[in-house]
């Protein structure tokens, strides 16, 4: 990137900077003390962030949230082989599809009350909710990807000597991969949202717990810090997967465009 395009990129942040200044000004000079407690100025939020980071509190909650997301993702990745089988074999699809269609429209959050009764407050319950958030986007995208594999690619493999099993492992899995990765991206995003919801009510740690806990002691700066952390980490996870996908699948136009 040249220095000029850097400057041009900074230009995009003008409005944001102005709004932050207005916020700072309003919070310090317009709002009365009670109101200012409810909306601390950006500098106050920053100070809160420094405090949280220095005490190690922030990192602990981030670590717990990320660990839950990761473990849930490991379980949810079973959606990939299931989706491949559903896409490849009609009779499996026939049996499993009705179950999926019933469960899919239920938002993960709607499972929270039941899951608290089943698993109690803590990791297992959180992971279960995140699992539900990640599982369906991966499954649906995998099924779709497998069904949409270019038929001539399968024919080409067959006439080069591939049997049905080789077609699945060497063609279908590979051709479906870009869209499976898209499913993972969407899934991790949905899972991240579900995670925060689950932690709000059913956890003793994590970013969702952090912001809810801060509410009880009226630390609005901590609430805002937690919210920003949730947003930033969601963004970073998405970016990492995008960049990794581009590096690992340079041939995939769907992701490059």
């Amino acid at each position, binding site marked *: 990137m040249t220095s000029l395009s850097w400057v041009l990129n900074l230009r995009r942040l003008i409005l944001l900077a102005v709004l932050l200044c207005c916020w700072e000004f309003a919070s310090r000079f317009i709002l009365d003390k009670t109101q200012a407690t409810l909306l601390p100025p950006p500098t106050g939020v920053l100070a809160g962030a420094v405090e949280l980071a220095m005490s190690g509190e922030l990192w602990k909650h981030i670590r717990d949230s990320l660990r839950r997301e990761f473990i849930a993702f490991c379980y949810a990745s079973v959606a990939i082989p299931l989706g491949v089988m559903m896409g490849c074999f009609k009779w499996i699809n026939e049996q499993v599809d009705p179950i999926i269609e019933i469960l899919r429209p239920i938002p993960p959050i709607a499972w929270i009350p039941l899951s608290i009764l089943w698993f109690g407050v803590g990791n297992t319950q959180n992971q279960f909710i995140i699992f539900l958030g990640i599982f369906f986007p991966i499954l649906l995208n995998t099924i779709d990807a497998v069904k949409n594999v*270019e038929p*001539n*690619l399968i*024919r*080409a*493999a*067959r*006439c*080069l*000597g*591939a049997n049905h099993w*080789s077609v699945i492992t*060497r*063609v279908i899995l*590979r*051709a479906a*991969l870009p869209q499976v990765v898209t499913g993972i991206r969407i899934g991790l995003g949905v899972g991240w949202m579900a995670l925060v919801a689950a932690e709000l009510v059913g956890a003793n740690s994590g970013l969702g717990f952090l912001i809810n806990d801060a509410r009880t002691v009226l630390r609005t700066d901590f609430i805002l810090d937690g919210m920003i952390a949730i947003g930033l980490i969601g963004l970073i996870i998405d970016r990492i997967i995008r960049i990794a996908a581009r590096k690992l*699948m*340079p*041939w*995939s*136009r769907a992701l490059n465009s």
Partner: protein
Amino acid sequence: MSALSVKNVSKIFPALNNKNQSVQALQDVSLEVNENEFVSILGHSGCGKTTLLNLIAGFESPTSGSIFCAEKAVKDPGADRSMVFQDYALFPWLTVRDNIAFGLHLKRINSASIEQSVMHFANLVGLSAFVDSYPHQLSGGMRQRVSIARALAVNPTVLLMDEPFAALDAQNRSMMQQEMIRILAEESKTVVLVTHSIEESINLSDVIVVLTRRPGRVKAVIRVPEPRKMIEDTPSYLEIRKKIRALINDEHDISDTV
């Protein structure tokens, strides 16, 4: 010995629902292809020529009749009948090298001889400098060369080609036809080519099979006097082209009056 023999093959596509009728694509087609012979199947679009090729490849099975490849009945697709597709059908996630090696990996050949084979065929189609490229980095003509190398690498009894040059522009098309002649001079092969271009079939074939309109039947089998040495605008070239064109136009008139 005939490399490929098609015996009284008919193909009827059943009606998909109550609204449309079943379609007879091919009717009683018989065909003998000798070893190292280049046979073109020529006809209007929708005459069932691609269906015939799909039946030979084993992608579909005939409603009646049978197909033998080197005396063996065709039931499934197999590497003895590899195909070159109009849309290339290259694996986009594999480099040129791995595309050419695809069929060889399936045969569980050791990697040294695979590499040797890959370089041989990459050389043959003039792409040895591009073995590490991905298909999307190549032009249409180059992609089709990869596809030809990939199909030849498994050493098929019959090489099947489904309108392989139809997606290329005119200049590339005639260049690829010349390339095909050169490749076949180096690597003799039995080839069945489906095309709608009279010129292409004259340039490349030993034998041209003209199909009728739907349902496809064999209308005429024409031997090219000097296979792959026909020079455009010479009397013998013009004569055979006139003959084929007459066969095809005659067909046109019949279908127009029906």
